[in-house]
Every structure is written in C-alpha cells, then in structure tokens.
C-alpha cells in the first residue's frame, strides 16, 4: 500500500515516466480481466491500452480508500462492460440465473474424474472456461490468478461478498461437471 502511494505521488508530482512502472506492475491484472471478458482478440490489446490511459487520467482521484489493484481492477472491469455494450455483445448470458441458497448447498453427486488426466486437461479446461458466463469467468480469474479475496472481487465487480462466493463455487462446480460430461461423450464416441 505504501509502495503504491509513493508510486502515485511520484507520477502526480510530474514524474510521468514512473507510470511505466505502474503499467508493468498491473498489466497482468488488466490483461486477465480483459482477456477473460472480451472474446474478440483484436480488441483486447487496444482495450488494455485504453484502460491504462483512463487510469492515468483518473489517478488524481484515487483516494487510497481501497487497494490500488482493486481500483485498477474496477476500472478495467467497467471499461470491459462499456466495451461490450458499445459493441452490442451480450452482457447477460441466457442460461445464467441467480444462484439460490438451496442450490448452493445441494450435495454434489457428480462422479469422480478417474481417467480425465489421460486427456489434455489444459485444453479442455480453458475451452470450458470460455463457455462460462462472463461474470463467472471473471471471478475465477480474479480469485485464482490474481489472488483477490471475495470482498475485493465484490468491490471490483460491484457484487455482494456472498454472491461472489456463490458464483465462484458454482463456476468451479460447473466447470468440473462439464469436463466430466465432455469426457464421457468422448469415451462413448
């Protein structure tokens, strides 16, 4: 936090070159969010760049009320939503419904993935992640790749902490179930 404060103060005091350090520090985070949400690869890099320009533009307004990474994540997430809206991409997946608590605590009856390691795990998992609703994809990425807590993810995506938790659990369970069903399909075909 103190390191981020010093970095921002340097940039705001006129040392614009320090902004390059900020980009290097947070480009992975921005990239994760953009690449997970925006399906069109030709737009991804441009959007990442626009996000950093926006960060630069608004750096003065950052009040250290949250972590810098959370603030940057929120800008990136909102700009992705704006981009999707502008390009008329679907913001709400049709099969995506709000998770109910009884659904959340339903016992898991999926059979174990005994032989799935024989197949290409990575390829399967990443193609299955892309099929998830964008909110679930983003939560999975922010939690597993960027190490954000439920609360921080909630701040980035403007969701209650409990919802983040429910979506995260659902995403992992859905991912596991779809892998099993696909694996079975391949065995029988």
């Amino acid at each position, binding site marked *: 936090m103190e390191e981020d404060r010093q970095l921002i103060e340097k*940039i*705001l005091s*006129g040392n*614009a*070159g320090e*902004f*390059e350090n900020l*980009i*290097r520090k947070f*480009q*992975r985070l921005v*990239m*994760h969010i953009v*690449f997970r949400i925006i399906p069109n690869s030709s737009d991804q*890099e441009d959007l*990442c*760049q626009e996000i*950093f*320009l*926006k960060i*630069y*533009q608004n*750096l*003065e307004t950052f009040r250290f009320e949250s972590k810098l990474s959370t603030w940057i994540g929120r800008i990136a997430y909102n700009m992705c939503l704006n981009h999707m809206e502008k390009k008329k991409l679907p913001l709400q997946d049709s099969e995506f419904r709000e998770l109910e608590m009884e659904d*959340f*605590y*339903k*016992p*898991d009856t*999926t059979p*174990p*993935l*005994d032989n799935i*390691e024989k197949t290409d*795990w*990575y390829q399967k*998992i*990443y193609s299955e992640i892309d099929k998830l609703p964008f909110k679930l994809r983003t939560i*999975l990425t922010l939690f*597993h*790749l960027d190490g954000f807590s439920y609360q921080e993810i909630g701040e980035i995506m403007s969701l209650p902490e409990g919802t983040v938790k429910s979506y*995260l*659990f659902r995403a*992992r*369970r859905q*991912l*596991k179930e779809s892998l099993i069903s696909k694996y079975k399909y391949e065995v029988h075909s």
Partner: protein
Amino acid sequence: MNAHLNSEKIQMLLDNTLPPSEGNKWRNHLRECAYCQKQFLEYEKLYGILGKEVGFQLPENFAQNVMMALRQEHKTVVLHNWVDIAYLTVSGILGFILLIYFTPIKVFQLIFGINRYEYLGQVLISMLNYAPQFKFSYVVVTLLILLIFSLLDYVLIRRKTKFHVLY
C-alpha cells in the same frame, strides 16, 4: 461421520475459509473416506490448473506502447492549449468590437460623457457613428455564431483529445 463432503465444503477446505474446528473435522473425514478423497483431489487438480496463466499474452513492449500513446496525447493537449489561447484572444477581440458596435450611443454618452468620444480613438468613433440601434436579433445572431464556433471546436479538436493529461 458418515455424510460425504459436498463440493462447497471441499472448495471451502481448499480456500481455507472453513472455521478451524470444522476444517479439522472434515480433514479427519478425508483421511478415512476414499470417495471424498477422490473428489478432493479432483478439485485440488482443478485449482492447480486454474492458477496457471495460459492463454493470456500482451506484447513485451506493451508498457512502452502505452507511454508512447500518452506522449502523443500530451502533444495533442499542448496543441490544444495554443488553440484555446488563440480562440480566447479572437473571441475577446470580437466580443469587444461587438459590444461597442451594438451599444447605443446614449449609453456611451452616459458612461463616458459627451466630451469623451475623442479619447476612444478614430476607429471606435467611426464605429459609433455607424452603430445601428440596439436590436435583439443581433444578439441572437452573435450567440449563434459563438455556438457554431464552439461546436466546431468540440467536433474538430476536443473529441480528438480523448484523454486529459495530468502534467
């Protein structure tokens, strides 16, 4: 404990979000239950893969590209500042001329006194001599001209400057 761990409990165990006593209870269960062990290992493997950064790539010079874009924006803003100064100067001069041109002679006489004309200079005096009576339509026309000027400024200059630079 006969009940199996459900997927949420397994995930909570892996996330370390279960209360310590409950976590220990389920860990003991995991040692004894082969079915739950399998479930747990599957999720553990899934976690491992989800934590790997595959399928993301930005160019190595991404940061430099952003900085270059920022400098480009900076140049545009500097240019924009000069245009602003020129715009203000021209507007100021035009405004002053219009003010004098549309001000009725009687108002001038009231402010400066009838004997002060000669001090305003030859140009202003000749302008005053030809000044028409104040008409509301002249004000409307003037405002329209300024509005068009502002619109042109916004469309041609300001919209191209997407980002305000802080320094």
